């Protein structure tokens, strides 16, 4: 049971960090980042190739770039940095001129392209098979199989969650956070007040990319493996669902959502006693997850913990984003 609980704790931590990043982007700033999972993947791949030995090791059964065997915490830092760097070109393409609904579609398509390219370009990151045997942090110094290591991993993850949470709180409460909310509520007005909207979006996009990269690095260190199948575009949607359930724009809500949806709900379904032909229960799980999302949006669209009202009450009811200039 211990191992299962520590696994859940680490996954929960990773999802919390991811949801916090997404809450900054989507909840606070109104950027619909449908390619979020790509930044997590970038962090995970980076951490993997930084901590792996050169690809001739292990009989050379996989191909990848780098392989630096960098000591912890360099792979994690590298993952975060690459997540942030990747946000620059993507943001410059998507955020400058596109309308918000276009942004969403563009990023969805970007996710598909990125996944297809990585799947097929084997020498880069071992293609569809992905990278396995990624060394856990401090594997050389500690017994990674011991229970104590599991607790240590949970502790490090928890420390990262706290750090990210504090940063996110700081951003939300700062004048910068107020500007972001102003931009979310009325982009044109914010621009008219002299705020550089694209620069605002770019910074929060990069901040989100850094945090997403870190979450990927934590995850890959724990499971020791990363492959295209782990970052298909629906992953992002589940994080959005978590944010909707928890309460977007509210950092505590983001954490709650991460615990409730990806962890609570998905894990609870694992305990269903078997019935029917094989494959039936898993199919029903998905049906149940769909109903959960729809039910929540119907009965409690602002989430369990709605965004706290800041200095100025929002001009439109929560659960709506004004259709900028559409009507």
């Amino acid at each position, binding site marked *: *049971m211990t191992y299962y609980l520590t696994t859940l704790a680490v996954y929960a931590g990773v999802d919390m960090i991811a949801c916090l990043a997404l809450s900054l982007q989507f909840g606070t700033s109104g950027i619909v980042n449908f390619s979020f999972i790509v930044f997590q993947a970038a962090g995970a791949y980076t951490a993997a190739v930084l901590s792996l030995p050169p690809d001739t090791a292990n009989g050379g059964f996989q191909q990848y770039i780098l392989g630096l065997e960098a000591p912890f915490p360099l792979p994690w830092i590298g993952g975060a940095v690459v997540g942030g760097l990747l946000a620059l070109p993507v943001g410059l393409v998507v955020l400058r001129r596109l309308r918000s609904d276009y942004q969403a579609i563009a990023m969805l398509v970007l996710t598909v392209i990125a996944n297809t390219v990585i799947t097929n370009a084997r020498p880069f990151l071992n293609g*569809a098979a992905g990278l396995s045997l990624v060394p856990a942090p401090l594997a050389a110094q500690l017994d990674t199989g011991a229970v104590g290591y599991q607790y240590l991993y949970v502790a490090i993850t928890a420390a990262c969650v706290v750090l990210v949470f504090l940063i996110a709180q700081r951003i939300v409460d700062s004048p910068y956070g107020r500007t972001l909310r102003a931009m979310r509520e009325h982009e044109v007005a914010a621009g008219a007040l002299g705020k550089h909207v694209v620069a605002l979006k770019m910074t929060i996009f990069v901040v989100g990319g850094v945090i997403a990269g870190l979450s990927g690095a934590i995850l890959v260190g724990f499971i020791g493996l990363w492959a295209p199948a782990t970052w298909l575009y*629906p992953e992002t949607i589940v994080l959005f669902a978590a944010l909707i359930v928890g309460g977007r724009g509210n950092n505590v809500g983001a954490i709650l959502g991460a615990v409730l949806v*990806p962890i609570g709900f998905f894990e609870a379904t694992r*305990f269903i006693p078997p019935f029917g032909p094989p494959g039936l*229960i898993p199919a029903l799980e998905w049906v149940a997850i769909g109903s959960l999302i729809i039910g929540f949006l119907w009965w409690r669209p602002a989430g369990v913990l709605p965004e706290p009202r800041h200095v100025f009450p929002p001009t439109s009811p929560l659960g709506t984003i004004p259709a900028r200039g559409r009507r």
Partner: protein
Amino acid sequence: MGRRNNVNGLAANARPGLARLGAIALAAIVLLAACSGATSTPSAAPSAAAASAAAPTATAATPLVVGVLAPFTGPDAALGPAYFAACLPAVREINAAGGVMGHQLTCKQFDTRGDPADAVPAARQMVASTPNLMMVIGCTSDEASSVAPVLEQNHIVSFCMTGQSEFNKSSFHYFHRLVPPDEYDAYAMVGSALDFNHYQRVALVFGNDIGSQAFVAPATRALTKLGATVVINQAIALGQPSYRTEVTKMLAAKPDVIFTEALGPTDATYLAEVKQLNGSMIPVIGTSATIDPVWFKAVSAAIGLPDLLKYFQAVDVSTTFSGPGYDAFKAALLASAADFADAPKYAQRGATLHLYDGVVMTALAMDTAKSTDPAVYNPVINKIGNGVTGATVVNTYKQGVDALKAGGSVRFSGAAGLTQFNEWNNSQGGYILVKYDDKGGEVTIGQLTQDQTNQIIQAGGS
């Protein structure tokens, strides 16, 4: 992080309004079940599962669980049921013979969703919620790399269906594999093309997924070294609506034969377009994964049964689908239709046979070791598979138990025949060349000699 794969695809032909009501009702049931399951199941296991399973204090009535850890949803959703269908007849046969030292067995599915990141919590949840886990079967190439360490750490005997070469000489003691790594399939295909059919120009048409691409490099190496030509190598994106341009390009390279494995509807679409654009089929050699009822059904519907029978060959690990071990398996499999209606469909699926053998072998190892402690019975599994001097060869669990009662040792020759484990718990039989009969059964048309096989393996460089 990979727990949700199949988001789009197909909707019901039910009306959505009704479907929605039904789905909500179902969800309510599922949730209720989840709650009751969550409160009752784990309470049995406050400590690590392996320890409880190992505890000799477990009462004789405690049922033991065979975990089927495999994809039941997602792109490889078709694999899980084939493995579940292996568990059912084994458990049925063992229980009918009185169980393992009085313990009855049950099968339980654990869905990895075909995603390595999802497989880790699935495996850990399995370990945590199943205190009396006897063994695990399944673990495909999708998840083997991520779950094997978890299983090893918890001392859980596993029989895996992965073809990854990293398990050829792994340090996992609890890991077992009764199928060869994928590159051996590739060598057998090369042997079939060069030595048996005397083709020279080969087109490689493999899906761009983990499993299928594993064949490309070894096949290319072996073909080139042995003087044949790879006229074109196409990695094709799975599930595309059409491949006509790819097919035209491939046909322009004028191959004698196509090597292929592209699962789902992909091969069916591709080969139908080959037939259409070429005016007739050209010979095709498939991997052992193409000897599969699902593949047969899809491709025979797409290109027509006569052409499939005439132009298609495949390689397969040598299983004869006959003999007393197979007959016992088949009888139990047919009876298992009571638990899983589709079970009889898997009567000629290699994976189903092998995993069935793995379960029975492990049960016999437990009887031999007189222990439910995996640390004790795990090393005995190799002895049951390879046999020790003077061992009686048995074909069913009941025969084995009787022989053990009579005081002898046993060697199990099951549904797929005899096993020969090497020191890394891999057992790889020889290869046969096969084709389909009109009902989707497998017909052996030839066999590679040991010399031919060795020559190709050497050319392939592993």
